Structure formats: structure tokens, C-alpha cells
């Protein structure tokens, strides 16, 4: 038995350990967060929303990889962690291949040694989960030097587990002994160490290690389950080896309310029964008999109790208990038949697809409350197996993907409707707006040209003094008139008097004088005007830019989506039948396994029924035989008493021939209270 039990127990222990979240918390007090969107992705990851977290992190990583200078992006601070987190999340989302690829990419990259070592450790973990211990070891061998401190213990623990899988128990023992005292692995190390020691042939040390672990007690139900499992495993092993006196305390240590209590009570009873102490065997078995009848151990106890009564020669009580067992077995066979039928009708998968299952902790059990769903208590053991868990999760994942896609298809229709509304709103408005925009554009261009000319002149004037550039319109006209007069005078000098010449010169002089003396003030003024013009043009430019953005936004709100939406819809429509086919295959696998399990349980119950019927008949015969013997004895005694001529004392109870009182009820020493006291001792 032990070789079969051990892998299951180890598997369960390791599965529990695997659930230790690998993602590291972000320390906000140290302001560790450098990229808001990384924090948002981790918010999903910390909640176990694997799909959403992978989508977010994948998007961030893809955007980051497209950057020209990624090292300048704040996401750089989280890049390595994001890569690892994607790997972890993909592993949790049962995408081992992708997780492996992501981590292998880290290993191939130019990364520091500690990062490479951590990546190798994570890759090894993936291989281990895929039940590929050799590949896991190969990955672990890629580690050179020390791994980062926060994963050191886990790496060593993984290495020990890999050694155990490969049959290298002595090396595993060495590593596990070194790991003792690691808080996060408390219990798991001791358990695996005990198993490794046993497998390495060091029986006494292994049993001592596991015994010490089994003697522990914890308010944490998961830890207590590990201790109980250890005790159950050791008790069963010792019982099988015929060490009955040693086995019993291990069964007694298993908590009565824990998940292993039924098996422990059954085992405790069998230890006593095999030692020939059937009265003591009845104590745990009668406790077990009152528990939920769907449990295998309880069903067996229903047969074991009358069997023990039979051995104690209390045949009438045995017959009553066999009768009770037959009633229970009959009801349970009917339940199983109905459950198998319900699975065949597809009710099981229908129940699995329900959303509320996610919200309830023990959702597998609650499935049974759904009308027509199978009795899931019979499926608990099957559902607890790693394979079945994987299938269940995959089925639910596929269902979730299908529903998401269906929602997206609805969203795409909504998007198209939004786009159509936007088009209907903007398209009539845009020609008028464009007209206004063109007028504005012309104004801006004109003003900009003026500004440029003006600015150019001012720049020139700062270098070369050009007072005429700063002349006002009237002054400019006056200067032109004076120039025309002078030209006229030059053509006909005989007609011009000295006085006229002097007047022209004076006029010209006045104008130049004014321009020369006011030059600086006018230049300053002109500069101010240029600034004002710049402001005005800036404002116009803002209106212009705003218009351009609004115009673009309006256009972008409905133009260019058609092809994208068409392509995305086609891809969804392509992927949905694939999901449906995979769901059907995975669902059929789940149904078949569940039906096999239920049929197996039903076959066992039917064999119990046959045994119970024979045993019941046998008990009746024996009880009847006993009654006849008692009647004969009574007659003999009556005869003897008459012979002795003594008056018969009618009130006294008559002793039976074999000393056994008539079986009216459970013998006092086998009452549950007495049993409880005994067990407590």
C-alpha cells in the first residue's frame, strides 16, 4: 500500500506548496512602483485573475519592446519582474509551454547572473509541474552560484523533490536536512524528509521524522491536514506490516473533524479487529457508521460493524446492522444510478459552467444542490486528483474564453453602432467647418507672413539703422511727395527759385529729423507691436491646432475602424468553434471519468450488498440457532427444577446456557460514550 499512497500524499503536499504565490509584493512605502500600468496588471494578478493579468502584462511588454530607447521608459524598472510574472501567471493559467518560452527568453537574454539563476529555477519548476523531472534537473543545473535569497529555499526544496522523483533519495535527504527550520516550508520539508529517508532505506529515521511531524498540532487547517495525512500514512504502513500495537496511536492522533478522520477511524478499527479485539474495533466503527453515507470509509464501516458483532456472537445485533447497511446501500445505489444518468444528460457540465461556482469556496460540493446535478460527494476524491483538477479548470477556462468572446462580439456590434452614429453626426457638419477652417487658415497664413516680414525688418534695423522703415504712412507719403518735387526741380532747375529749394530742403530736413530723433522710441514701439502680433498669432495658432485636433478626433472617431472590426470579428468567429470543440472533448473526458468513478463506486456497493445479504442470512441462522439452544436449555432447567421438587422462582431472570444475555441492545461496553472515553485515553 505504501508505495501507492506515498506519491499521492507527496503530490498533494507539493500541490499545496505550489500554490504559494510566486509574485512579489510591490513595496509602496519605498515608492517601488515606477510604472502605473505595471501596478494595475499586478492588481489583477494578486487577485488570481490570471487571464486579465496576462493580457495587461503582455500588452505592456509588447509596447515596451517596440520602443526605440526602452531604457528611458519607467517600465524598465519592472521589465524583468514583468517577464517573470507573465511566466508565473501563464503557469497558473495552465499554459506551461508559453511559461517555458517566456522564461527561456530570459535565459537567452543578456541578463545578470542572479536573474538568470532565478529564471532557471522557474523553468525547472515548470518542468516539474509537467512531470518532467529530468528536464527540471537539467534546468536546475543551469544555475551557477547562488540564486536570489528570496527563492533560495524554494529552489533547494524543488531540487530535493526532483531528486526524489529521480530516485536519488540520499541526495534529497541531504538537501532537506539543510532546509529544516525554513518557516515558509515548515511541515513540507519534514514530510518529504521522512519519505526520502524511508525510500532511502533508513526506516527508523524516516519513521521518527514522520512521527515527530504527526505529533504536531495546528489551528491552520491545511497544516493540520498534512499532520493527519502523515499519521494516517504511518498507521496504515505499520498495520500492513503487522505492527498492530504500534499502528493504533497513529490513527488515534488524526483529528476527528479533519478530511482524513474517516479513513483513520476505519484504520483504527481494523487494527483492533486484526488483533482479535472486536469489542474495541466497534468503538471507532460505530462512530464512523453515523457519518455521511456517501463516504467510502463509512460505507465499509456499515459492513464492518455487524461483522464485529458477529465475531462477538451478538448475531441478532449483527443482523439488525446488516439490515441497516442493506437499506443504506440500496439508497446509495439508487443515488449513484441517478447521478450517472444526470451526467449522461449533461447536467454535470451544465453545473460546472455556472458562474456562481467561482464565488463559493467549496464549489464542487455545492454543485449537488443544483437540481438534477449528480451527487458530487461521490466525486470528491476524483475531483481532488491533479489530473481531474486540471481538466476541470481547463474546461472552465474554455467556457470563460467562450463567454468573453461572445461578449466581445456583442461589443463589436455596439462599436459599429457608435461609429455609425458618429459618422451620421460629423459628416454633415464637417464641410461647413472645413470652409471656416480654410478662411481661418488663410488669415493665419497672412498674419504669419506679415509677422515674418516685420520681424525680419526689425532684426535688420537692430544691425543697420533704417529710420525710413519706421516712418508712418503720412510721413512716408510726405517723403515721397518731397522726392517727387525734388525730381521735378532737378529736371527744370531754371524754373526753381532759391527760396523754393530751401523750402524743399527744410521740409525734407524736418521729416528726416523727426525720423532720426524718434527712431529709438519707434523701434521700441515696433518691437512691442511685434510681440503683440506674436501673441495674436499664437492665439490664432492655438485655435488652429485645437481645430485640427478636434477635426482629427472627429474623423478618428469613426474612420478607419471598419477593417479592424471586420478582421477581429472574423478571428473571434474562427476561434469560437475551436473552443467549442475543445470544450466538448474536455467535457467528454470529464464526464467519462466521473461516470467511471461513480460506476466503480456503484459496483463496490453492489458487491457490499451481496456480502451483506449473505451475512444477514448467516446472522439470522446463527441467532435462530442460538435461540433454539436457549429454549432447549430452558426446558432442561425446568425439568431439573421439577425434579428437585423446589418451587420455581418466577421473578428471577434465567441464565442462558452459554452465559450470553439475550441481545436486546448494544452491549454496554460498546456504547459510544464508553467508546469515546476509551478513544480519549
Amino acid at each position, binding site marked *: *500500500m*505504501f508505495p501507492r*499512497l506515498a506519491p*499521492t500524499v507527496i503530490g498533494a503536499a507539493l500541490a499545496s506548496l505550489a500554490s504559494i504565490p510566486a*509574485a512579489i509584493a510591490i*513595496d*509602496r*512605502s519605498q515608492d*517601488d*512602483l515606477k510604472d*502605473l500600468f505595471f*501596478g*494595475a496588471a*499586478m*492588481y*489583477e494578478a*494578486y*487577485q488570481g485573475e490570471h*487571464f486579465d493579468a496576462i*493580457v495587461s502584462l*503582455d500588452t505592456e511588454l509588447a509596447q515596451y519592446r517596440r520602443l526605440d530607447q526602452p531604457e528611458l521608459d519607467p517600465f524598465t524598472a519592472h521589465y524583468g519582474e514583468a517577464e517573470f510574472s507573465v511566466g508565473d501567471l501563464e503557469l497558473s493559467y*495552465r499554459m506551461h509551454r*508559453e511559461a517555458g518560452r517566456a522564461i527561456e527568453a530570459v535565459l537567452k537574454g543578456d541578463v545578470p547572473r542572479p536573474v538568470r539563476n532565478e529564471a532557471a529555477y522557474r523553468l525547472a519548476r515548470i518542468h516539474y509541474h509537467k512531470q518532467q523531472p529530468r528536464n527540471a534537473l537539467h534546468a536546475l543545473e543551469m544555475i551557477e552560484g547562488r540564486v536570489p535569497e528570496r527563492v533560495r529555499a524554494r529552489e533547494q526544496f524543488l531540487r530535493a523533490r526532483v531528486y526524489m522523483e529521480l530516485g536519488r533519495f540520499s541526495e534529497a535527504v541531504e538537501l532537506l536536512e539543510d532546509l529544516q527550520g525554513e518557516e515558509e516550508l515548515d511541515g513540507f520539508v519534514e514530510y518529504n524528509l521522512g519519505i526520502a529517508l524511508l525510500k532511502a532505506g533508513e526506516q527508523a529515521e524516516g519513521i521518527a521524522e514522520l512521527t515527530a511531524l504527526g505529533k504536531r498540532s495546528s489551528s491552520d487547517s491545511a497544516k493540520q491536514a498534512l499532520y493527519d495525512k502523515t499519521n494516517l500514512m504511518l498507521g*496504515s504502513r505499520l498495520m500492513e506490516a503487522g505492527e498492530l500495537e504500534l499502528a493504533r496511536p497513529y490513527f488515534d492522533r488524526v483529528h476527528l473533524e479533519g478530511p482524513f478522520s474517516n*479513513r483513520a477511524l476505519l484504520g483504527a478499527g*481494523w487494527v483492533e*479487529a486484526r488483533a482479535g479485539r472486536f469489542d474495541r474495533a466497534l468503538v471507532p466503527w460505530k462512530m464512523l457508521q453515523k457519518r455521511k453515507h456517501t463516504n*467510502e*470509509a463509512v460505507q*465499509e464501516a456499515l459492513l464492518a460493524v455487524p*461483522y464485529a458483532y458477529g465475531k462477538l456472537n451478538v448475531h441478532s445485533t449483527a443482523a439488525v446492522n446488516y439490515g441497516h447497511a442493506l437499506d443504506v446501500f440500496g439508497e446509495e445505489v439508487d443515488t449513484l444510478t441517478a447521478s450517472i444518468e444526470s451526467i449522461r444528460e449533461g447536467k454535470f457540465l451544465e453545473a460546472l459552467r455556472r458562474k456562481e461556482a467561482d464565488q463559493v469556496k467549496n464549489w464542487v460540493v455545492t454543485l449537488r444542490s443544483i437540481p438534477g446535478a449528480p451527487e458530487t460527494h461521490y466525486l470528491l*476524491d476524483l475531483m481532488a*486528483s491533479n*489530473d*481531474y483538477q486540471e481538466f476541470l479548470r481547463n474546461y472552465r*477556462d*474554455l467556457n470563460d*474564453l467562450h463567454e*468573453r468572446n461572445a461578449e466581445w462580439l456583442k461589443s463589436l456590434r455596439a*462599436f459599429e453602432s*457608435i461609429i455609425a452614429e458618429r459618422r451620421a453626426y460629423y459628416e454633415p457638419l464637417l464641410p461647413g467647418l472645413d470652409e471656416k477652417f480654410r478662411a481661418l487658415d488663410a488669415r493665419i497664413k497672412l498674419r504669419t507672413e506679415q509677422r515674418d516680414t516685420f520681424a525680419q525688418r526689425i532684426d535688420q534695423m537692430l544691425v543697420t539703422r533704417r529710420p525710413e522703415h519706421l516712418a508712418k504712412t503720412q510721413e512716408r507719403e510726405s517723403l515721397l511727395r518731397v522726392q517727387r518735387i525734388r525730381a521735378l526741380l532737378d529736371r527744370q532747375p531754371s524754373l526753381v527759385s532759391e527760396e523754393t529749394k530751401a523750402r524743399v530742403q527744410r521740409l525734407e530736413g524736418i521729416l528726416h529729423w523727426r525720423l532720426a530723433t524718434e527712431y529709438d522710441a519707434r523701434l521700441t514701439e515696433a518691437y512691442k507691436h511685434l510681440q503683440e502680433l506674436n501673441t495674436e498669432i499664437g492665439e490664432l495658432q492655438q485655435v488652429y491646432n485645437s481645430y485640427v*485636433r478636434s477635426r482629427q*478626433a472627429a474623423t478618428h*472617431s469613426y474612420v478607419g*475602424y471598419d477593417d*479592424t*472590426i471586420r478582421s*477581429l470579428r472574423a*478571428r473571434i468567429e474562427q*476561434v469560437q468553434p*475551436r473552443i467549442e470543440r*475543445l470544450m466538448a*472533448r*474536455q467535457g467528454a*473526458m470529464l464526464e*467519462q*471519468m466521473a461516470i*467511471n*468513478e461513480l460506476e466503480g463506486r456503484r459496483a463496490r456497493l453492489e458487491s457490499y450488498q451481496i*456480502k451483506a445479504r449473505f451475512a444477514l442470512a448467516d446472522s439470522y441462522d446463527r441467532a435462530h440457532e442460538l435461540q433454539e439452544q436457549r429454549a432447549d436449555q430452558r426446558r432442561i432447567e425446568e425439568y431439573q427444577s421439577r425434579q428437585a421438587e423446589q418451587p420455581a422462582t418466577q421473578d428471577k431472570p434465567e441464565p442462558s446456557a452459554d452465559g450470553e444475555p439475550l441481545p436486546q441492545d448494544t452491549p454496554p461496553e460498546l456504547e459510544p460514550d464508553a467508546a469515546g472515553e476509551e478513544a480519549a485515553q
Partner: protein
Amino acid sequence: MSRILILTALMLLASVGYAQDVSRGDIRGLDEQIQDVKKDVINLTAELSQLEEKLLFPSNTQASFFVSITEPEGFSLESVELTLDGEVVAHHLYTYREIEALQKGGVQKIHVANVQSGSHPLQVRYMGKTDSGREVSGQASYAVEKKVGPKFVEIQIAGAKSAINFKDW
């Protein structure tokens, strides 16, 4: 009979769950196809999400608000309410898993809005509890300055100190 029962008991104690009547090859083949379809849907969802954001929250009007806890020790956030431009835009009650995610340093995207460029008054109110059961609440205001590009505002709740800080990203 006792031998049969003992044998059954031992089998029962050693019950092992494994895939019955389904070959390993079938399981592996199906599993790989499921992994492929998951990858395809992840890629598809990423593209669809981007399309949705582009269509519903274009960058020129987008303002996103995020909630985080800067001092999570001994503090559980119960609810957060956001009022933007005088209108309650988000009121969130936290589940146990969400509280845990915030305490580990996760950042919750609580609301995405479409707003015009300019200043927008934001009021934030929160309620929570300390480990000892003391009720803690706080509120703060902030002017969200929306410019041309998308706006990201982180609302940092300093746990039991009843303080709120705002960070523009």
C-alpha cells in the same frame, strides 16, 4: 469475509486519483490545443481592449483614475467614492481579494472618464478599518489639469493616517 474487508480497507486507504480510461497521449494532445487557443484568445483580447480604449476613451479626452494604498499595514480599505466635476462617477466597495491585492501593492484602475482640456475638480472619499476595528475615513480634493494627452491620476491612500495624496503620471 474479513480478508475481503481488510483488502478493501487497504485499497480504500490507498486510494489514488488518476485519469481513468483516458490515454496520456490524448490528454497531452488536448492540453496543448487548449494552451494554443488560450494564447490566441489572449492576443485577440489585447487587440480588442486596445480598440475599445481607442474608440471609447480617445487619448485627447481620456482621464484615468487609479487607487493605491501606500501604508497598508494594519489597514483594510472598505470603500472609495470619486466625484468629478460635481458628479459621483465611481463608488467602489472592496472584496477581500481586492483588499489583499491593494495591500500587496497592486493599483486599481477605478474609473476612466472622457473630459475636455482644462481644470476639473476631483473629490475623493474613502472609508476603511484598522486591524483593531477602528473606523478610518478621509477625503481630499484635487484639480485635475487635463491637457492634450491622456491624463492618469493616482489616488494614494495612506491607510490609517486618513491622508490622501494625488500623483500625476
